[in-house]
């Protein structure tokens, strides 16, 4: 045991380096590999062509999520190319012996929702997936990050990754969360301050009183968007909140108390040194709304859309000018004066039961504005079932929301759920890139409560002023 104080990242890293061949990058062991239909077919095909097997099928879990329809599951999939990709995942899982949570399974859902929900995600683990939002799982104190398809194939074949050790970045948020401000607002605010590339080459560890006070699902929202600040992974030290969340879940360790005893040793030691530290105050955060075409182009709901000329950096200025043109916005427009056509509540950022409860509590007793089409897409079959048991589906339906089946849906619009050109959407997802939700579509990222209030009002409103019924 090294005697120098170590960070959470140091400890997980040290625990997983199998071997560093001379002159090569280390082989880092992967505890859990999550697989979905879009980034895996070429990897399985590569295995087949080389005559290789999946090294640890029991550590590999698959589900279709990205392009699945969110309409009636009893109907056949209309898009033949989507259907082929989902059929291919099914065939590959069968051939290689990988556990698949298929479309008719209550455990199907967005891969980053079902991992924690089933207890597949655990503290101290290394977890990878061919998806950049794999950082979500870091909320439970795991080192989790997205990889490309060639790396998916490498993990399938070797259960390891070739990986240099990333740098550590402590992002500390001091103080308590102001009323009406959520985990989504914190992370959007942090991305705005850190920039879209502030975390490149780093793993973020979120610390501080504000982060510690968050529930498990809120922590997932924060870690989920680490990649939007450029960090491949975000993590939060495991504590009683984590252990309480995991206890009793399907894939949680059988000897849970022994596992907890080991997990309690994971948090960064006092005096551990990070490569970089950034400190923020929760009191400075107000509900956030993005105005541009990357998640760092964000401001408070009480502010105005900035002018491109207000940016000193020439890259930022030209990006802002392009973004405002694409978004059809003028500098100086009050955020609360931006009208909306669509509202999307869902995605691996904000589709868990607490997100749906937060949105439903805003909507209860109201109707969706006549100018708005709104939809709720639960993150998993279990979230949907739980919401229905709590009557949340009725709250949404009675208000005029569509209530859908689980999947990634309009976060990236690979399935039929897309924006039309120039449609403007308040979305609880993670990316406002050009065309992300549909070619020409205009995305504003917000929290579930802010999205729900916008659906009712037809434009953004400050959730801190909301009259709950």
């Amino acid at each position, binding site marked *: 045991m090294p005697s120098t104080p170590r960070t959470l990242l140091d400890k997980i890293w040290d625990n997983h380096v*199998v*071997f560093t*061949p001379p*002159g*090569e*990058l280390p*082989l880092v*062991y992967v505890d859990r590999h999550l697989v979905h239909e*879009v*980034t895996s*077919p*070429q990897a399985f*095909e*590569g295995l087949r062509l*080389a005559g290789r097997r999946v090294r640890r099928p*029991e*550590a590999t879990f698959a589900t279709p999520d990205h*392009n699945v329809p969110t309409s009636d599951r009893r109907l056949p999939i209309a*898009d033949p*190319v*989507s259907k082929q990709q989902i059929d291919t995942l099914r065939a590959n899982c069968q051939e290689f012996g990988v556990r698949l949570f298929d479309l008719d399974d209550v455990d199907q859902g967005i891969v980053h929702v079902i991992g924690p929900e*089933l207890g597949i995600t655990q503290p101290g683990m290394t977890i990878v997936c*061919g*998806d*950049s939002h794999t950082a979500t799982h870091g909320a439970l104190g795991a080192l989790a990050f*997205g*990889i*490309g*398809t*060639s*790396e998916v194939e*490498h993990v399938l*074949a*070797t*259960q*390891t990754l*070739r990986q240099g050790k*990333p740098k550590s970045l402590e992002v500390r948020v001091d103080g308590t969360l102001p009323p009406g401000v959520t985990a989504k607002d914190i992370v959007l605010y942090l991305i705005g301050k850190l920039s879209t*590339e502030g975390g*490149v*080459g780093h793993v973020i560890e979120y610390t501080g009183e504000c982060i510690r006070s968050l529930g498990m699902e809120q922590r997932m929202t924060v870690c989920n968007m680490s990649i939007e600040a*450029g960090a*491949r992974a975000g993590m939060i030290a495991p504590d009683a909140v984590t252990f309480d969340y995991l206890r009793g879940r399907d*894939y*949680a*360790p*059988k000897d849970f108390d022994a596992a907890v005893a080991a997990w309690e040793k994971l948090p960064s030691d006092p005096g551990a040194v990070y490569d970089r530290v950034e400190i923020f105050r929760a009191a400075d955060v107000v509900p956030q709304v993005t105005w541009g075409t*990357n998640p760092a182009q964000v401001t408070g709901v009480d502010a105005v859309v900035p002018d491109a000329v207000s940016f000193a950096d020439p*890259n*930022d200025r*030209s*990006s802002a000018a*392009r973004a405002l043109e694409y978004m059809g916005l003028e500098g100086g427009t009050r955020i609360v004066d931006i009208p909306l056509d669509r509202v999307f509540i869902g995605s691996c950022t904000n589709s868990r039961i607490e997100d749906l409860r937060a949105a439903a509590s805003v909507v209860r007793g109201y109707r969706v504005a006549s100018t708005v089409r709104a939809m709720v897409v639960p993150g998993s079959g279990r979230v949907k079932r739980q919401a229905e048991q709590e009557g949340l589906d009725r709250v949404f339906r009675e208000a005029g929301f569509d209530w859908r089946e689980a999947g990634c849906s309009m976060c*990236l619009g*690979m399935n039929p759920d897309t924006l039309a050109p120039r449609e403007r959407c308040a979305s609880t997802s993670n990316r406002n*890139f*050009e*065309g*992300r939700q549909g*070619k020409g579509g205009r995305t504003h990222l917000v929290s579930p409560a802010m999205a729900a209030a916008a659906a009712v009002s037809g434009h953004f409103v400050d959730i801190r002023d909301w009259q709950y019924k």
Partner: protein
Amino acid sequence: MQSFTTHSGIVAPLDRANVDTDQIIPKQFLKRIERTGFGQYLFFDWRFLPDGSANPEFELNQPPAAGASILLARRNFGCGSSREHAPWALADYGFRAVIAPTFADIFFNNCFQNGMVPIRLDEADVDELFRRATAAAAAGGQYSLRVDLQACTVSDDAGFTRSFAVDPFRRQCLLEGHDDIDLSLRHADKITAWEADRGLPALSG
């Protein structure tokens, strides 16, 4: 994997920061189950007008970029989604190298798996390359660079030469066209011993 030693080619300047992988290859083309054929969809929403014709305002459709094999861009190139379809599309279109001040981590790694070199240069050097490319275009010509992975240099024939840093292992794999998985499986005994030592994390359920 295709190896890379040296490459000389025409530079396509793409004067934009934060080019995300959703722009490089839009989601509607991710449903294919092959690794090949993505070049026709590269930068699709920027490259083509709604009627399917080439957008004359997009940089890659303009004469200075005709036949280009080296892409020059601004900060944080390849951010966003981990989709390896982005480097597949760039490589299939004919790019062998991308030069930018910074890259997103996942995209950067993905390039090496596809015989393509991501080259980080200082912002001032990237500015200089944009100036030289713009000057060549203004004179009705094209701008070319030579990438030498053996020497880790980028140079033109008018006095510009810069070194770039690349991880020695990634460099060696590219130079020799190694299959990463083959290399790792040479250490399968080490992985097996490591797993046995740990007793494997218990898998239940």
